[in-house]
């Protein structure tokens, strides 16, 4: 040994600077990584909210309409067939022309009419059908403005662009400004977004249909996957003998939890639609597919919760002469319930956000009417987002982001419920 302890100390001290630099670098990598993730979350949320928040307000135009028999081409308001074919757009146009008499001629008149959503005509028709005596009278009504006007007010259309490059002409913009100045045009709460189904016209499109579809689908999912998942977990934890078959089941469940969701969609298409002939686009089939998808999640969570119940409780129950099933239903399951429910909520949240398998079973159709049952054609919220994201209109970007906000709100509520449940009922033995 030629090196003394003092030499060693000198060597170590020399290397220390380098080693501490490496230490600092490593730490910084770590911090940066964490911040990449966190920053992305914040970026994503702020982008979505920034884009979507405006969809909760919508441009409305207030007009004095005259149910003019001549303009409507309608002499007899008691005949429903005539009512259905009357010329309502003319009434809307006339109401606008009363304000802007200079808009002469077909072209100008049509440009003026384009400021108001086509839903205005439907609204007039509905009112007249409900009360035929309105014919000939006047009233002040508030209509949806067209999507382009809406976007103009929200700044989604650049006024400085050359006229051909934007959807609204100079003249139309002048009208919009004039209406705004008169107080007849402005943004107001967008009730329709939450109370209407899908539509090709952005200003009329709402998420109610998708929300109902999601609800029906999740009801089926819950009804199937919860009891079956809990039953499977009970069997595997409390009854199953340790043998190859149980091992196989166990490996299978874990594997199934990691199979891509789209594959479940293929199963749904081949089995439920083609073999059993179930209806396409139905929440029933969607729920079936999603329940198979959430089953592993629920089983795994329930098993963990059941396993956490101390064995002394089981011994006490068995020692009292309870059968195994009584032991489970009277003691183990109630104690495991918070954990089971937490797992179920998380599984349901995952099912709520699932898109791909539902595309396979045709829940991707354009459907205007909200579903009224489990076999009505329907779509779900994430698929609605997918459909809107595909639409070229600028106004749909806003709707898509708003739909995402609705979806995320539901997910946040569900996850918060899971967290509360977990912390409220967490037991320490």
């Amino acid at each position: 040994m030629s090196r003394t302890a003092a030499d060693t100390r000198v060597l170590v001290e020399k290397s220390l600077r380098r080693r501490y630099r490496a230490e600092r670098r490593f730490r910084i990598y770590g911090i940066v990584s964490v911040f990449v993730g966190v920053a992305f979350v914040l970026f994503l949320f702020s982008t979505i909210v920034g884009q979507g928040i405006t969809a909760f307000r919508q441009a409305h135009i207030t007009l004095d309409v005259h149910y003019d028999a001549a303009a409507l081409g309608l002499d007899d308001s008691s005949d429903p067939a005539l009512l259905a074919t009357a010329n309502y757009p003319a009434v809307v146009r006339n109401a606008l022309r009363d304000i802007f008499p200079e808009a002469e001629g077909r072209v100008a008149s049509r440009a003026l009419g384009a400021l108001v959503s086509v839903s205005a005509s439907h609204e007039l028709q509905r009112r007249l059908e409900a009360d035929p005596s309105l014919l000939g009278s006047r009233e002040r009504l508030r209509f949806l403005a067209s999507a382009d006007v809406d976007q103009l007010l929200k700044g989604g259309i650049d006024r400085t662009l050359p006229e051909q490059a934007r959807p609204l002409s100079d003249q139309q913009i002048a009208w919009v400004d004039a209406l705004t100045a008169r107080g007849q045009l402005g943004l107001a709460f967008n009730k329709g977004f939450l109370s209407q189904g899908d539509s090709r016209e952005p200003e009329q499109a709402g998420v109610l249909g998708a929300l109902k579809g999601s609800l029906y689908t999740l009801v089926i999912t819950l009804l199937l996957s919860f009891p079956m998942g809990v039953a499977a977990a009970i069997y595997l934890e409390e009854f199953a003998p340790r043998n190859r078959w149980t091992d196989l089941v166990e490996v299978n469940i874990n594997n199934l939890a990691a199979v891509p969701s789209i594959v479940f969609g293929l199963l749904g298409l081949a089995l439920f639609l083609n073999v059993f002939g179930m209806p396409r686009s139905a929440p029933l089939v969607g729920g079936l597919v999603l329940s198979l998808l959430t089953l592993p999640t629920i089983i795994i969570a329930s098993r963990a919760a059941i396993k956490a119940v101390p064995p002394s409780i089981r011994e006490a129950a068995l020692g009292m002469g309870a059968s195994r099933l009584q032991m489970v239903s009277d003691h183990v399951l109630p104690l495991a319930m918070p954990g089971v429910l937490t797992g179920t909520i998380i599984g349901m949240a995952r099912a709520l956000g699932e898109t791909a398998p539902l595309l396979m079973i045709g829940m991707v159709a354009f459907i205007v009417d909200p579903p009224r049952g489990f076999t009505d054609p329907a779509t779900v919220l994430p698929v609605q987002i997918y459909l809107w994201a595909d639409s070229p209109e600028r106004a749909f970007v806003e709707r898509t982001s708003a739909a995402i906000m609705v979806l995320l709100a539901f997910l946040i509520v569900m996850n918060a419920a899971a967290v509360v449940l977990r912390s409220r009922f967490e037991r320490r033995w």
Partner: protein
Amino acid sequence: MSFSASLLLLLALIALGYWVGRSRSLQLVGGAGGIRRLHSLPSYYGILAALWCGLPALLVLALWAGFQDSFISRLVAAGAPAEVLAAGPAHVGLFMNDVRNLLAGSIASESASEAVRAAAGHYIQLRGIARMALTGLLVVIVIVGLAFARARIAPDYRARNAVESVLEKLLLACSTLAVFVTVGIFLSVIYESVLFFRQVPVHEFLFGTTWSPQTAMRADQVGSSGSFGAVPLFVGTAMISGIAMLIAVPVGLLSAIYLAEYATRRFRSWAKPLLEVLAGIPTVVYGFFAALTIGPALRGIGESVGLDVASESALAAGLVMGIMIIPFVSSLADDMITAVPQSLRDGAYALGATRSETIKQVVLRAALPGIVGGVLLAVSRAVGETMIVVMAAGLAANLTANPFEAVTTVTVQIVTLLTGDQEFDSPKTLAAFALGLVLFILTLGLNFLALHIVRKYREQYE
């Protein structure tokens, strides 16, 4: 009587069964005072009777519900007009579609042809008969079950044991469902895939380099056109997953290490849940974000440095997918790192190693198998991810190694082939199942391997 009405009737009958069983048992021992002379509580006799009449009836109802429509349809189809029958099965299918649409009210009765209307009438008639038969059958089953129960019930009959053995079998059945799902998936994709491979040879599918299913328009071209070469899809999938892993593995691993070994409790308590939020965001949201924000942004950046980036590029999809997988990698890595016993760390610290040296040379090395398992699981996630790529990666089957170009993936093609109008048995639809088979086998293999590695790792430190 509709199925929901049948179900309600059946539930009512089952409740009746419960009541009969229960009151019979009490009657045998002379009322509530005699419960001690019963082997089991009266409610068990009730449940047993309910099971005896309910289970077979439910089974019949389920089978009936599953097969009634296809059975009746076949009968009606057999009675279709001769010229329809002669024109081949495809026409019979169209004819039956018209019938179904008419029944569902989605086409007006006036617009349907005479034959379709007649068939629809036939259908309704058959359905009425079937429903009546079902109701009758259910009632008979329940009555037989009740009679059986009444005869069997005796004070020393072990009702509880009988009920429990039935319930245990139900539990067992539920637990094996997962296996059947796997088998079901496998069989359904295999079946369609075999049909596909009859038209397109396996080697052409696996090794062909041109993917253009849409061009097979002419009948003589179907299957022989060579347009089902899936290599571009495999390459696209691999490229996007690769980009995703390049993001997710380092970022996920380093943040797991930082949070587990360096961060203060306070920092950890809010950073960790925030990272986990990434895992809870639906993939369709990521897809929207990739297509509308990241894609154009990358294109802009590319333009400013003179690169030609497609607005639907592999890079945009891979990047966002990588972000999505970060929490997945980090939470698995966290588990693995915390599983490493403290004694190993202490050994390194006692030698005077710095923290990062301990982590890099001891902790990570010990946790390596577990982390590899976690990364494999993440790869399987990336390969099977659908919505991000559908929305942000594009449809063009380019065989390219350039991440700035649009590529397509296996999952994108499954979605494109199966959404929209599709006729069954065309190679287009069948190809989707062949792709699904590849995807299923690949991810199942990856999961199996990964879970095996992770389990071995866990056992090592238990």
